[in-house]
Each structure stands twice: as C-alpha cells, then as structure tokens.
C-alpha cells in the first residue's frame, strides 16, 4: 500500500503537484504564527504549518553557570511528541524521536548565536539565566522539526525578561521591560527524499513513504546545523540541491517571523 502511495506522490511530483493543497515540490505549506498564547510564559508562540500545529513557550530560571563559561547564560530546548497530536504517539517519557527533535532545534538556536548568552549573566561565576524553551505538538501532519524550530524562535523573539528584586531573585508573575537578548533568527528547513525526488515540508502521508530527510538550519548566510535522518541516503548533488533550496525557503519563512512581535 505504501508503495502505491509513493507512486502516486512521485507521479504528482512530476507535474510539480503535491498530495494535498495547491503547492509544488519546493513549496512549504501555509505558515501562521500567533504569539503570546500563554500569559504566564516569558514568551510563547503557536505555529500552524498546514495541519501541523505546535506550541512553544519560554521560561527563565536562575542557575549557576558552567565552570568553563562563567559569564554566560544557558539554553535548554525540550519537546515532547504530545499524544494529543497523533494516534501513534504514546504517553510517557520522551522517546528517541522526541529527543532528536529537541536536540536539532536546540543546536540550531545555540550554534547560530541566536541568543546573546553573555547578556544573560547576572553575577559572574554565580548567577546566570537559564533559558528553557519547551514545545508541545498539538497536531502532527508531518515536518515537526521545522514547525518546532519556527515556534521556538518566534517564542524567543517575543520573550520578556522576568523582573528581579534587589537580591536578584525572580519576582514571580512580573516582567522587566527588557526582552531576551536576541541576535539572529535560525530557521530549519527539512527536505524529504521520496524515491529520487526531494520534497520540501512533507505532510504526514508523504513523510511515511520518505526514505531519508535532511534538516538544514541556517541564519543570515551561514549554515548552523544539519541533521540527516531516516534509513535512506543523499548523494552530494542532492545535498547541494537541499542547501541551495534551504536559503530560498528560509527567506520566505523569515518574512513571516519578521512580522511577529
């Protein structure tokens, strides 16, 4: 049966059409970003990518810095394959897929230098800000990495710093007028290989017949993170094709993120 769907998807691709909706092989689905969807967070965003829906939120806590980086704050991204999102997701501890998802999003943000960690130092060697970005999937229709990456970035972009009292303790439920120091916008774009064709932003049915995927996270003109997944493989020509396309797609997504505030 999967083979039949694959044949159908590839035949459509020949005509530059996709499974659902009116888009071509290189086009992403409609992207909607809503921010501040949860008032107790420092910043939050809901991303709707076609029928994929994810929500990300930022919370800040005070912690001690790593000894090799005494003047820098830290970042932890974590996501769950929330069982509300898909009949196949099971409740319980995050599995390997959820952990990979979290780490790919985390690396994109960290490596791009998106957050100015030095500005997140409160008392050198003693107190720094820990930035905790959590995302939840509400509806899985494929390409969760891109949806979560975009949601995480949108939530960070609107995040406010919590208020500190005279003893450098967080005043719960209050915020300063400062935003989380934010420098760059890393954007993940994931490519799915079906047969010998490359599909951008696969939906769930397409993803099910894809042998391999490649996530390219870039900011400005630099590539910050790559992740190849799936049992299939890419040749060098295909990788170059993905890299070239990723920058074009990134600019379109950036247009949407830039409107967010």
């Amino acid at each position: 049966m999967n083979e039949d769907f694959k044949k159908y998807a590839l035949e459509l691709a020949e005509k530059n059409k996709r499974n659902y909706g009116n888009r071509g092989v290189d086009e992403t689905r409609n992207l909607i970003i809503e921010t501040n969807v949860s008032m107790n967070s420092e910043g939050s965003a809901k991303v709707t990518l076609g029928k994929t829906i994810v929500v990300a939120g930022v919370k800040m806590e005070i912690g001690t810095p790593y000894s090799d980086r005494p003047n820098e704050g830290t970042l932890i991204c974590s996501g769950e394959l929330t069982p509300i999102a898909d009949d196949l997701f099971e409740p319980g501890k995050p599995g390997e897929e959820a952990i990979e998802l979290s780490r790919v999003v985390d690396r994109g943000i960290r490596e791009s230098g998106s957050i100015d960690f030095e500005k997140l130092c409160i008392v050198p060697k003693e107190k720094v800000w820990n930035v905790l970005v959590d995302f939840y999937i509400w509806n899985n229709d494929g390409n969760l990495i891109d949806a979560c990456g975009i949601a995480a970035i949108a939530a960070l972009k609107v995040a406010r710093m919590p208020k500190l009292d005279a003893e450098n303790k967080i005043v719960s439920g209050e915020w300063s007028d400062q935003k989380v120091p934010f420098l760059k916008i890393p954007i993940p774009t994931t490519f799915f290989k079906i047969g010998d064709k490359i599909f951008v932003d696969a939906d769930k049915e397409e993803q099910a017949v894809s042998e391999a995927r490649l996530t390219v996270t870039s900011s400005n003109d630099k590539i910050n993170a790559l992740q190849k997944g799936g049992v299939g493989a890419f040749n060098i020509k295909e990788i170059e094709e993905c890299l070239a396309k990723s920058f074009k797609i990134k600019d379109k997504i950036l247009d949407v993120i830039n409107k967010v505030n």
Partner: protein
Amino acid sequence: MTAKKTEEKKTESRKSYKATGRIDKRKATEMRPMEMSIGFLPNCAGSARVKVGNTIAIAGVYGPKKARPKHEELKDKLLLRCYYDLVSFSVPDRARPGPSRRSTELGMVIKSALERSIFTEFYPRSMVEVFIEVVQADAGSRCASIIAASLALADAGIEMRDLMPAVACGKIDDLVCVDLTKAEEDYHEGEGPTDIPIAYLPNQDEITLLQLDGKISKEELAQAIKMGIVACKEIHKQMKQTIRSKYEKR
C-alpha cells in the same frame, strides 16, 4: 498588650472578604467570561478548547479504538483513559514537563467524572483516550479540563447521557462564591480560601466530581455546592450552544 489582644484588634480592623468584595469585582455567583470551541485538532476524533477567565485547556479524544495494552481491555465495556498535562510554561514558575503526582491524580478524578456520562457498555473491548493540555493556568484548570474533555467526547460522537459542566465553587474568608481565581486561592486573610471543584451531570442531577481543600462549615459547604450547581447549569447552556453553532452557522 498581650499577643491575643493584638490579634483580636487586627481582626477588628480588617475588613472581611464579603465586605471588600472580590478582587476582580465579580459577584459571588458570577463566573469569569468563557470561550469554547470544538473540532480544531484534525487528527483527533474530537477536540475542544475552553477558556475560563485566564485559564485555557484543550482536550483531544482518540477512539473508540483497539484497547492497548491488550491485557487491560475490558470484556464488557469501554476502557476510558484520561491524561491531564500542565504545559510547562502555563504557570508562573515553570512546571517540569511530563507526568507528576498531581497530573496523575487529576487524570484519574477527571476520568471517573467523565466515565459517568458515557455509555461505556456500548463499546466493549475498546478504548477511548482523552488528552488534556492546560496551556494557561489561573485556577480552575481541572474544571476547564472537564468542560473541554466533555465537549471533545461529544465532538468525537461518543454516546453520552449528557454534557458535563464543571466549576470550582468555594469560600474566600467569609464569602461563599464560584469560579475562584489564582489570586483568590492565594488569599489567606481571615479564614482563607476553600476550593471545591465540582462536575455535574444536569439531566441526571448527579455530582460526578467533588474535591475540597480548605476549611468550611457544613452549612457553607451546602450553600457553595448549590451555588456551583447553578453555575454548572449556565456553563451547560454555553456548551450546547458551542456545539450547535458549529453545525448551524454553515
């Protein structure tokens, strides 16, 4: 002056909650504004979003489907599972993602409440899963969750006796009232807060969830529950309207 006298004096000078009125200026019997919608999660058999004041809960239902694990299937009726999850950034101090003792208990009491509304005998050997995510919490999250879950079950086409509204009634200091906010739950003057979440099946006239934290007299408790039932009937109307308007507007 003795310590006892100081305390007495303090009590005298302090105005009671009944006298000062509620923090957000509501009447004792008045609920916070509510928003409800259904059917926004395409993968779920049924789904709903409920906003009560600043508390937001979403619920998604899967099934009836094959019970898993198989050894837990019930031969003569439906296996209902209910998961309550507090989104980490829904509260001022981040909640650790994943299950907690609190979420496990709430999942269980919500399940027990909802099960009463479902014709479980119609679905032998099968399973329905209800997933609840509290996105924003300002007290009353289990009640908002029950409303959302009940709407989602109806949206999924599960056979039910009635829709199930829920509300936290209670007492703040000396004022018996409904739909407590977080600020009210944190009001510790005088007798402090008493929180009594209830769920109610209107056409069976049954209370299906009942918990209490605080200190309250028998008479005040009876008064609070009665006030809660009146509030539930109001919520019930809005739940029905939510379902009707989805299919009538088009």
